[in-house]
């Protein structure tokens, strides 16, 4: 299952809940405000670093660009919308709202 998180991890617990519930090897895609979580040194950096031990974590390039996020934690994979579609081809999506 593909877990899609769109809310800012600094004002909402959806990323935290997602990481807690997602099964091992389930990929996690960060979109919209959730992409701000990938910045190094943020309050959710360790949460994401732990998550990357058992999940591939992706961030949507258009949303990173829209927010000027150009530095990110090692291991975060960047995908464009075509890559987003490919993830949905490979896994059933579930959006954390």
């Amino acid at each position, binding site marked *: 299952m593909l877990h899609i998180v769109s809310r800012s991890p600094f004002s909402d617990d959806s990323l935290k809940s997602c990481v807690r519930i997602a099964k091992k090897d389930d990929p996690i895609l960060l979109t919209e405000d959730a992409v701000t979580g990938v910045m190094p040194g943020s309050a959710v950096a360790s949460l994401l670093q732990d998550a990357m031990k058992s999940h591939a974590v992706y961030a949507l390039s*258009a949303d990173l660009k829209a927010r000027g996020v150009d530095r990110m934690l090692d291991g975060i994979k960047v995908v464009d919308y*075509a890559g*987003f*579609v490919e993830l*949905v081809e490979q896994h059933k*999506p579930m959006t954390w709202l």
Partner: protein
Amino acid sequence: MKIGVLVQEGPYNHEASDSAYKFIEAAMAKGHTIQGVFFYDDGVYNVASKMEPPQDDRHIAKRWSELGAKGVDLIVCVAAAKRRGINPDLIMPNSRISGLGQLSEMCTEADRLITFGD
């Protein structure tokens, strides 16, 4: 692959409407079929025909309607629409008002259902 899309957020709010649209464009470019777009809750405003955004902004309702003209089924939830004063005269061409049954049908018929919301 058949993909159903659920939009639960209104236009010009956060980003759900734009994200959904861009996802659909990318999916269609890859040859996937969009089984339908179901507008639920405030999402029903996405196809409000009286919307008049500034000229230099994207026209979200028109954009959806043009997608509908390409054969994508745009379904507006009747209960959500009634609550918000949206009736069949106030929705864009190429969209239609129907019930939640259409959403459950979309869930069973599509290979994937993806939700965009707030």
